[in-house]
């Protein structure tokens, strides 16, 4: 595996009030590639993903031991708002702000002092999220008037508007219908040209379709990490094979 490493962890352990959720994980996320994190429910996928932009800071009793680096720098040594600006996140359920479509996109840039050309930012972000054509005539209507799939693309557009480096996605399609899921998967393929993407999914077909690298987790440990093709066609570990062939999970 080659390329620039964007995010890396070195033997990290994570705990919720003393209960271990991530065990000794060392993993690299490479630039302009899609890294999928797969594994059965409760294996720590979301925990690991949220630690990349320090969203676990909000969980009382959570602690990390070991280093997580973003572009070579320890994430705890940087300003957390700056980190989150660079490492954006799309959540499991669409969570647009209770505001208009337009305001949903401009709020992020605004709080970081970007006040000019907001119209352009809105158009550009919506185009990147493949939503522009559907909403260009109603930018000032409420975000909740959109369908679930549209809302999730709006959330992607909101993240893209920050001009991030990395986009983290936590099961972004789990609340969506198959058609919306396909659209988002297509979108991920487009987005990876410009962004580094980490996607958590419990859907193995989805991982196989969209990702370049796959990390398979089981009970807090990373069992296997490698190119998606080889993980799916030629897994090295028995556990991975069992999971992929649907023997558990």
């Amino acid at each position, binding site marked *: 595996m080659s390329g620039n490493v964007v995010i890396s962890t070195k033997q990290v352990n994570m705990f919720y009030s003393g209960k271990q959720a991530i065990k000794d994980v060392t993993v690299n996320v490479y630039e302009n590639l899609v890294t999928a994190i797969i594994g059965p429910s409760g294996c720590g996928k979301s925990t690991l993903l949220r630690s990349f932009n320090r969203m676990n800071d909000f969980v009382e009793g959570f602690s990390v031991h070991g280093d997580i680096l973003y572009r070579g720098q320890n994430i705890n040594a940087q300003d957390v*708002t*700056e980190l989150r600006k660079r490492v*954006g996140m799309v*959540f499991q359920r669409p969570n647009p*702000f209770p505001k208009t479509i337009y305001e949903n996109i401009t*709020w992020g840039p605004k709080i970081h002092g970007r006040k000019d050309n907001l119209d352009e930012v809105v158009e550009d972000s919506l185009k990147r999220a493949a939503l522009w054509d559907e909403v260009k005539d109603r930018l000032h209507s409420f975000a909740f008037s959109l369908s679930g799939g549209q809302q999730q693309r709006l959330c992607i557009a*909101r*993240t893209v508007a920050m001009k991030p480096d990395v986009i983290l996605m936590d099961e972004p399609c789990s609340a969506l219908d198959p058609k919306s899921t396909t659209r988002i998967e297509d979108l991920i393929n487009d987005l990876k040209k410009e962004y580094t993407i980490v996607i958590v999914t419990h859907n193995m077909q989805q991982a196989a379709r969209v990702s370049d690298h796959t990390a398979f987790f089981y009970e807090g440990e990373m069992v296997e990490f490698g190119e998606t093709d080889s993980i799916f066609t030629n897994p090295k570990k028995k556990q991975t094979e069992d999971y992929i062939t649907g023997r558990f999970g």
Partner: protein
Amino acid sequence: MNLSKKNQEKMFKFICLIFTSFAVISLVVLIWHILRDGYEWLRPELFTEFQSRFPRKAGIKAGVFGTIWLISLTAFFSIPLGIASGIYLEEYGKKGKIGKIIEVNVTNLAGVPSIVYGLLGLALFVRLLDFGGSVLSGALTLSLLIMPIIIVTTREAIKAVPHSIKYAAYSLGARKYQVVFGHVLPTAMPGIVTGIILALARAIGETAPLIIVGALAYVTFIPESPMDEFTVMPLQIYNWASRPQEDFHKLAASSIVVLLTITFFMNFVAVLIRSRGQKRMKL
């Protein structure tokens, strides 16, 4: 007797219905009585006349303006302070020891009888700060009285803001104050406004604490500054209702109609805002 589950439930429903209708019927009877007694005296003079020894010449002008003064000042003090305290307690002070202590106190304060606030106002504002029996003393006393209500409803409204919205904002690199002022407060606003209206509606009806801080029942002028003496509608009503003449009782009834109309209207607006807010929050 061996009632089946279904019958038990029917029975329970029926009992609830009886009690509810009891409350509704009493209210209707009450309003009907007041209307019957007061409708004749609901005429323009009621609003254009000051107090008088003669019922025909007496009106609630002083009370109306006194109430307007009092409630405006009360709103001026209690709304900003109440909202700020609510935000502080819910968003910032929750973890600290001081926050815990304040929290317990605020919750208990909401249940303290209003007369106790009157005594506090008398000692603190009327005597110690020497504001006398002025609108200012009354307003500060009522502010203390309704602030716990505003604080509690503000906190409830903030608590009801979905975490997913906050996380979305944080994930864009927002700082806490940006999340609070950009999303939490706007989303919580319908709930906060509802609480404020209900609190002010309560303040309008208060009488006991105002008597204690020295509001007068017989006033023939409109306050011109916060330091002026005053009366309020409920106090005039109380005064009239305790006179022997029949006509004063009718005058009291007609003033009650006015007072009830105002508080019903405020409650109605509160309900309206709340239901509209709920609609907006729904995904």
